């Protein structure tokens, strides 16, 4: 598996051209009919001052060249289908192919979002089934599929939190966030018009209860918590945390970034959470698309149901049909143009139906098993920042490499030469030289053994031949692109020479 990218055609091209540089005047890939109707020409239909004067600088290529260009480009890219991808917190697990076929069915892929409900009953039944299953897994009452990703789910949940307090005539100012949280949490809090206040982690890598007590008062709208947290630790004081936040009238928000490790084992609702977003592209195995699309459905407990964005999917028992209920006077408003990332939700449904209740629990158990197994195999080389059993991921530190003049990033780059995508580096911020590792449940024991061996090798090389790490990678199409230069000499679009 090593040197996988080096072996591909796309990487052999020394200075890989841009599609614009392959353009030759007069070539074409497009195939479209004549307008073929009895109607005036464009010049008569569009006033002169609204017409384009010069054509846009799109490339002119043959379809053959187009296909070669993007096929080779794709070969200059790592992917789950290529090999292990142990990015912590990203949950890069295998994405089943049956889910791709599901989303491509014409009854879903060619369904117009403004189609009357009577003509979309199959799609609505799918969403209804998926909502029920996700609510069962989270212990919540209802959900909205509108959020296109986790961060949009966060904003939706915070605006529901706001509506809840407002309905009680309550003005609150702050939302509490652990210092290990994803950056989206504080960013979403700002976007919701509140102030994010950090609470520190203790020596266990868990929310420091004393620190939490100090910041809680009647100005606190809620607490956002990822559980297990980004350090891969289960917040074992969760019952007390829930009690504390509820006591001051705040709500408890579950960031579902790590929900994959507890499905079927413990439900957020049973831990006292009021609002939950899920990342279907993580927990429910939909492909990450090079950075998106995801899907971030947002579920709430019964007392918050009336604030969900409209429309809400409803089963009319009398008429025996599904419909979208737009008559929701307390709804916070729409968060997406239509019904969210429907095609992703179809994939998640296919995955969920493939697993069933026992399968879902097995997935969580094996994710935790794989992470702990890898943790133990590498802990001499890369000690974990917080000792003890982890959940689906662990955060190690590359601090021991520093005495050899080697950074954690160097070790990550060396891993690339050894045939693996590196774990997440330098996050969470609370751990020095952090290496955040999430193997996921779909990697085999052999793969994890090999990944562990590669990690141990990098640590040994750091001592014996540090230059090998500092100069890595050497097997990739490019080596250590200069990020400072990219920001200083800003080039964010191609321009002809």
């Amino acid at each position: 598996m090593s040197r996988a990218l080096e072996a591909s055609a796309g990487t052999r091209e020394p200075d890989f051209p841009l599609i614009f540089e392959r353009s030759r005047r007069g070539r074409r890939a497009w195939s479209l009919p004549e307008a073929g109707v009895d109607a005036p020409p464009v010049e008569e239909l569009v006033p002169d001052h609204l017409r384009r004067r010069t054509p846009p600088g799109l490339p002119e290529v043959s379809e053959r060249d187009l296909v070669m260009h993007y096929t080779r480009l794709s070969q200059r890219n790592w992917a789950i289908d290529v090999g292990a991808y142990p990015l912590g917190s990203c949950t890069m697990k295998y994405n089943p192919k049956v889910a791709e076929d599901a989303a491509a069915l014409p009854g879903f892929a060619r369904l117009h979002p403004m189609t009357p409900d009577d003509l979309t009953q199959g799609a609505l039944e799918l969403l209804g089934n998926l909502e029920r299953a996700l609510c069962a897994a989270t212990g919540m009452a209802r959900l909205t599929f509108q959020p296109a990703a986790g961060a949009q789910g966060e904003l939706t949940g915070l605006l529901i939190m706001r509506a809840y307090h407002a309905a009680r005539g309550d003005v609150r100012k702050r939302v509490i966030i652990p210092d290990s949280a994803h950056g989206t949490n504080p960013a979403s809090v700002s976007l919701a018009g509140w102030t994010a206040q950090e609470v520190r982690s203790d020596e266990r890598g868990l929310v420091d209860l004393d620190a939490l007590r100090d910041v809680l008062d009647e100005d606190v709208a809620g607490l956002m918590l990822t559980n297990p947290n980004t350090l891969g630790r289960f917040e074992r004081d969760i019952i007390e945390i829930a009690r504390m936040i509820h006591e001051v009238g705040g709500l408890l928000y579950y960031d579902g970034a790590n929900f994959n490790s507890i499905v079927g084992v413990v439900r957020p609702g049973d831990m006292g959470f009021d609002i939950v977003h899920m990342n279907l592209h993580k927990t429910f195995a939909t492909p990450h698309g090079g950075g998106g699309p995801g899907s971030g459905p947002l579920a709430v407990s019964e007392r918050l149901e009336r604030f969900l964005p409209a429309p809400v999917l409803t089963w009319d028992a009398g008429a025996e049909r599904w419909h979208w209920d737009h008559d929701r006077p307390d709804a916070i408003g729409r968060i997406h143009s239509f019904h969210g990332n429907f095609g992703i939700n179809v994939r998640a449904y296919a995955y969920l139906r493939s697993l069933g209740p026992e399968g879902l629990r097995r997935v969580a158990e094996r994710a935790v098993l794989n992470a702990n197994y890898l943790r133990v195999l590498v802990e001499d080389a890369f000690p974990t920042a917080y000792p003890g059993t982890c959940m689906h991921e662990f955060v190690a530190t590359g601090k021991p490499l520093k005495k050899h003049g080697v950074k954690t990033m160097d070790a990550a780059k060396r891993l690339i030469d050894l045939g693996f995508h590196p774990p997440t580096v330098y996050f969470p911020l609370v751990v020095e030289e952090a290496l955040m590792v999430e193997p996921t449940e779909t990697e085999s024991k052999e793969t994890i053994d090999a990944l562990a061996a590669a990690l141990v090798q990098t640590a040994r090389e750091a001592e014996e031949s540090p230059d090998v790490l500092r100069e890595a990678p050497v097997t990739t199409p490019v080596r250590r692109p200069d990020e400072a230069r990219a920001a200083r000499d800003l080039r964010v679009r191609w321009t002809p020479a």
Partner: protein
Amino acid sequence: MDFLPHTADDEREMLATLGAGALDDLFEPVPAEVRFAGSLDVPPALSEPELADHLARLAAVSDGPGLTCFAGGGAYDHHVPSAVRALAGRSEFATSYTPYQPELSQGVLQAVYEFQTLVCELFGLEVANASLYDGAHALAEAINLSVRATGRTRALVGEGVHPHWLEVVRTYTSGLDIRIDVAPAGPAGTVDWAAVDATDAACVVVQSPNFFGRLEEVSAAAKCAAAAGALTIAAADPTALGILAPPGELGADVVVAEGAALGNAISYGGPYVGLFATRLDLVRQVPGRIAGETLDADGRRAYVLTLQAREQHIRRARATSNVCTNQTLMAIAAAVHLSWLGPEGLARLGEICVRRAAYAAGRLSEIPGCRVRFEGPHFKEFALQTPVAAADLVPRLAGRGFLAGPDLGRWYPELGDSLLIAVTERRTAEDIDSLAEAIEKELAEA
């Protein structure tokens, strides 16, 4: 089927390495009192053939796709070229993640860099981001940018903006100190921007073609904004920009669009892709990811994510936006589709849409009692006024094999007799004539 590789031996050996007796021991940190004891209330597992049958049955009960589609309202039945579907569907793109390790991500990074260039070319602007969730989200982020850039807190939005987009903008800004005012549309379905006072506004928002398919005077909106020191935000339709002037050249400071029509399935409204571009001097205010060109350690051209200090993973509470995951795969499909089209194909696409829509407008206006609701230049969509309630007409046309609408009464009670008709390159003159006959028959029976 659970896609797990563990054999019984694997599991035993792994647990032994951990010194654990059972899998359950690994969940020791989870307090017993919150553990879920039962079996989740989700349906039992299906084998792949059972699952395929189940999904095919559900898909078959959605009759909408079997109809001839004249529906619009922000989602359009465009052709997705086979090459585009094949390339954007490649699993090297689809099953990768955010390019945090550029050495292993040159494919996605370069494709995004090409996408940004193509969006700049379409819009006539200098910098585009790597995508946002959808058109509505792009507009909400653009308004937030204008508030940061001007220090003002009022947005002036033309009434022709998609009503769902306006709702999303209101939701996005509901926690912030931002006021959304609507500049009303006149009898022609467009705003008379020369008569609008944008004093104190952070931005003026104009969509062209607007929700009624009408072309707006973007440069008049830009003049109105400039006179007040506000930014101009224009929402565009990328399929029109082979024949319509790029909004950036008409004075827009920020251009946003729904990009789904470029290479992506209509898919009941998502996943789509928000396009976002602006002037270079505003680049540090841009939300979301940006790919940039640089050199690698050997002096080779390479691509990286750049200006990340704007983003939530660095700037946290003070980030330009909370966006993390975006719609990269949809952006790649858009880039491939635009490259498939080239300048001539894009112009042809625009020509087909505008001329066939004009033919449809003429043909449907011949039906007694029917007329185009708003006079003036349109692109590929128009509001058709009928002698009956449009909300009743839509399902009746479906009974005759046509999907039209939506009916405008949903958002504008005074337009309850009107519905939208959209015409893409997939609708022929024969389709249009058949739709006209279907409407004639329905009206005769009404």
